[in-house]
């Protein structure tokens, strides 16, 4: 019987699998295979010993698209654009990347100068200004043939409002260049501001051939093994069928981080928590994201590897600081941490793989939060002596003892994390004190209580499956498609009926793409004259304006009710919810005696012996009193003094500040 939901997440180092079976979680972790990520995917299925016949759904998150952008290893891509506007992708917004480092260049445009072609035509705000010149189109076609490109982005001015020319160019190209991937800006992102639209469209074309080939191959292997065709995670936090993903590749760029946020939202909701800040701290970087009323938030203001991609993406804020970040002293005598990272190789000094610089992990080890001699994924054994040596070297430069340095490194790191969490809460008009902090990733639970104290957060959640939360998120992700319609009109000129009609039309279209979807209506609004829009819920059209004033005030601290409000876009989010299985945590099997070790929490500058508990031996109802340490399979949680915890009925360690 088919009942298993699989989520397989390909990360930089490991490929994780989660199988959900009526509330039970089965996991597997295998090394990733960067050459062909699908190999690792199939390995994870074999490692988990899953029977193909029992799989009901197979969801997949990957970094193929992100990596292709980062390494600039996409297709040979051309652009066809309006005559006179050849270099929009290179000029970008004309700002330089660094104010004072005058020799720093921007990342190269996805389409080099030699592959930029133009056609004579022009649309303006009101429609056609210059008809599409067939001859210039023919010339562009033959130039494209000669250039032997794999993909073409068609990007004409004002195509977001008047797509006729662009559609015509697209038709001609698709016919004349069989096998070449063609992306139209009016299809990828029908939104004004040419640079951002062209950039998103160019990314779509650039990624199209590689991603399509990868997904096709994966689909063949998965189906060949007798499992259902894979669903692919998009940056928006919802999955789509493989065929759609191949056609909308720019929407899958942040496939990876999206899974973790969805997973955190799911686990927390299972335990009754709906307002969350997620905190995923790894070796080199950390991701934070807000979740409001159980819903992940999306933004359209993301740039990946220097390429703006204005499609809905889960609102994840990333800082390049993690367990591997290196501590150093600058010329002014301040203790600094990062942005340089020791990575996994050579890694922190404690790894004994040749790294001599003190890292955040070394500080955590020295303070007793991590176990001296602990084995990490295979041959790496943590050596506290090496950490101490590295930290004391920093201490000599600062005139501080090793303990002060270790506490300082942790504090400076926490400041950076607090800053990141403030960006996604306070700067979004959200009060962090009303949220619970969900900590995961290898280092998240080590720092969570301190961050919570700093932000006034009273609840910290550490999910049982924290090591494979992304894969879990995949397994429970809804099918999702996003639709956009440009409007650009002041609200007072629009009848509610018109908007209702427009939404219904979009919904009809969506109903053809998805099987009885649920709809979420949104609108991008601004005060007439402003340049940035705010996305507002538009399920109740009568309240649209009032909701906008409210959201504006929350975000920017003021409202202007006498001003005219402008509607820029209508958005429709269509989802087909998957059933979210409940999670169950068994009671602990008998009493287990906690271990003990010395740790230092900085408050009294004294070392104290604290209990060390093994999460595997705990179960529903197990209680903890801080200070204590809880060891998870892939992470360690520090329960600071003043915190008390209990394992809830879904297996999450719920910590409350007393």
């Amino acid at each position, binding site marked *: 019987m088919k009942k298993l939901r699989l989520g397989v997440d390909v990360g930089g180092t490991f490929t994780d699998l989660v199988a959900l079976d009526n509330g039970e979680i089965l996991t597997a972790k295998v090394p990733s295979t960067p050459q062909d990520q699908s190999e690792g995917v199939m390995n994870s299925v074999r490692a988990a010993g899953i029977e193909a016949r029992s799989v009901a759904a197979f969801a997949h998150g990957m970094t193929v698209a992100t990596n292709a952008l980062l390494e600039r290893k996409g297709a040979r891509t051309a652009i066809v654009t309006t005559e*006179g*506007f*050849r*270099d*929009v992708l*290179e*000029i970008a*917004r*004309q*700002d*330089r990347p*660094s*104010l*004072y*480092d*005058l*020799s720093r*260049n*921007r990342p190269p445009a996805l389409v080099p*100068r030699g592959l930029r072609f133009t056609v004579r035509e022009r649309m*303006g*705000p009101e429609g056609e*200004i210059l008809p599409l010149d067939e001859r210039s189109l023919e010339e562009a076609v033959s130039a494209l043939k000669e250039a032997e490109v794999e993909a073409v982005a068609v990007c004409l*001015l*004002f195509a*977001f409002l008047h797509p006729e020319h662009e559609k015509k160019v697209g038709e001609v190209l698709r016919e004349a260049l069989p096998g070449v991937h063609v992306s139209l800006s009016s299809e990828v992102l029908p939104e*004004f*501001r*040419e640079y951002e639209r062209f950039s998103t469209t160019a990314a779509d074309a650039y990624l199209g051939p590689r991603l399509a080939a990868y997904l096709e191959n994966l689909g063949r292997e998965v189906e060949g093994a007798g499992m259902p065709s894979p669903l692919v995670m998009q940056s928006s936090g919802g999955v789509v069928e493989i065929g759609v993903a191949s056609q909308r590749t720019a929407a899958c760029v942040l496939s990876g981080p999206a899974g973790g946020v969805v997973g955190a939202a799911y686990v927390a909701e299972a335990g009754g928590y709906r307002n969350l800040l997620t905190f995923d701290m790894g070796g080199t970087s950390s991701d934070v994201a807000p979740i409001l009323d159980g819903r992940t938030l999306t933004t359209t203001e993301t740039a990946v590897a220097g390429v703006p991609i204005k499609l809905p993406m889960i609102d994840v804020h990333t800082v390049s600081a993690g367990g591997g970040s290196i501590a150093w*002293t*600058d*010329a*002014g*005598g*301040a*203790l600094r941490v990062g942005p340089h990272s020791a990575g996994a190789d050579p890694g922190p000094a404690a790894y004994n793989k040749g790294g001599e610089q003190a890292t955040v992990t070394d500080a955590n080890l020295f303070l007793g939060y991590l176990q001296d001699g602990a084995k990490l994924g295979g041959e790496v054994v943590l050596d506290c002596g090496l950490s101490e040596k590295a930290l004391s070297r920093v201490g000599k430069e*600062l005139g*501080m003892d090793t303990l*002060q340095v270790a*506490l*300082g490194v942790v*504090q*400076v790191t926490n*400041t950076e994390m607090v*800053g990141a969490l*403030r960006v996604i809460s*306070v*700067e979004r008009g959200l009060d962090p004190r009303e949220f619970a902090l969900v900590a995961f990733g290898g280092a998240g639970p080590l720092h969570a209580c301190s961050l919570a104290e700093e932000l006034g957060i009273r609840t910290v959640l550490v999910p049982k499956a924290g090591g494979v939360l992304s894969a879990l998120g995949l397994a429970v992700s809804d099918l999702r498609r996003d639709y956009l319609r440009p409007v*650009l009109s002041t609200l007072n000129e629009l009848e509610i009926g018109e908007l209702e009609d427009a939404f219904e039309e979009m919904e009809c279209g969506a109903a053809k793409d998805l099987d009885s979807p649920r709809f979420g209506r949104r609108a991008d609004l601004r*005060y007439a*004259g*402003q*340049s*940035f829009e705010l996305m507002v819920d538009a399920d109740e059209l009568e309240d649209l304006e009032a909701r906008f004033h409210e959201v504006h005030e929350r*975000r*920017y*601290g*003021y409202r*202007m009710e006498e*001003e005219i409000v402008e509607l820029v876009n209508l958005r429709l989010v269509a989802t087909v919810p998957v059933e979210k299985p409940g999670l169950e945590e068994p009671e602990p099997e008998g009493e287990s005696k906690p271990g003990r070790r010395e740790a230092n929490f900085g408050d009294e500058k004294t070392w104290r012996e604290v209990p060390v508990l093994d999460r595997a031996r705990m179960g529903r109802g197990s209680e903890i009193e801080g200070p204590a340490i809880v060891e998870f399979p892939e992470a360690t949680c520090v329960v600071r003094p003043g915190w008390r915890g209990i394992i809830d009925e879904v297996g999450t360690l719920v910590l409350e500040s007393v």
Partner: protein
Amino acid sequence: MSERNLDPVTLSVLASALSGIAEEMGAVLIRGAYSSNIKERRDCSTALFDARGRMVAQAEHIPVHLGAMPEAVAAVMDRNPGAGDVFALNDPYSGGTHLPDITLVSPVAAGENEEIVGYAVTRAHHSDVGGMSPGSMPSSSREIYQEGIIIPPVRLVRGGEYVEEILALILANVRTPALRRGDLRAQIAANRLAQTRISELMERRGKETVLTAFDEVISYTERRTKEAIRALPDGEYEAEDFLEGDGTTDEDIPIKAIVTIEDDSMTMDFTGTSEAVAGNVNCPLPVTRSACYFALRVLLPEDIPANAGTYAPLEILAPEGSLVNAISPSAVVAGNVETSNRIADVVLAALSGFAPADLPAQGQGTMNNLIIGGRQGGGWTYYETMGGGQGASNSGPGPSGVHVGMSNTLNTPVEAFEMEYPMRVERYELLYGSGGAGKHRGGDGLVRSVKVLEPASLSLLADRRRHPPQGAQGGEPGSIGKNLLNDEELPPKTSRELARGDVVTIHTPGGGGYGKENG
């Protein structure tokens, strides 16, 4: 150097908290603003000052705002500010830079007795402040009175309440009052945010710790700047360059700098620079200071924060009444946007004598200010500055179509432009090959052609139309820029009336090359 009272950890933690507040102020201002100069092009800056008027943290979006804020705070401190007040000013001779930059200064109060512990400052380029031409960037002004309404430091908000008369007076003197109101409101919101955030920080960390951090952050930065200057060889180098006309004549105007380094201090001396001129390319001292700070910053490690300490080791000598230290009522509107670039060029040229090998060749050295305004539909003004070629450097070719010096504003998207103005962009692309040749090529300039669809007025303030950006280490100079009205070539700085259908075309200069081409 003050005594150190904070440990290195607390210092690091609070320094990042303070710059975080300045950044957040900037985000609020940009997001809420109405002027496209602010919202699209980020022509604004935000900063925190301590109670003594020293800058503690700044969010820099635009280098030309770097050094010009302390005067604004000093001018407000002279006027007995109280909690809940917000002062507005734009007078270049009393804390401002040029009239379109309106600065709002709010005292930050702490505790029940509302002691003033510092100041929050926002400065933003408003798209019109009245005066003789739409956009308030006339190319031919001869006195500051022609350039717009002059606002000395006055209370726009007193004890939390708008001073409606002042607001009414300002709005009555500008062409687009509704936009001004929106922009000012966004600035006030940003200043208020600083008050909230400082209060929160003091609640968490303790007032005394935060106040100590103000001192420490400044002295920490000063230590690092001195360190960097000490690493350069002692000596004295000079350089000279020219500005091409002042809008009233087309004569070259010399700017001269002598840079001296002695141990850990630096002097920039402008003796020998032209007297103030009849046109509007004069600089009030704060603008000159910004240009000097910019040149210094280019030499410093990038992670040194911007505050009073950064610039303490630098002395600037600018003769009073000269082009670089103009006195009232000299016209100054273009000093900020054009002369500042040339000052930075001259100082960097002199600094290259100290041989930091990675200084690039000269970039376009102008902002190519284009201002077009019309009367229809309640009146409109459009202001744009344009990128060009950056100089190539030892590490590679110069970027193309970017701002290189005292500005880093974004462009106005063609699609936003055409929906907002009765104008059409006919061409906007790079001028391939306009960067200077060399082992590494200079970046290319760009061309932007704009057709007006109804009668309008044009003001142009540009430079490097005769003297090209120079190459470095044997590289060739970049191409000069060009201004065209239909087919007619215009001078670097000019004003014209435009008829419906006229096309204004700007070619921006290319950057200098680096190294010999076949060397």
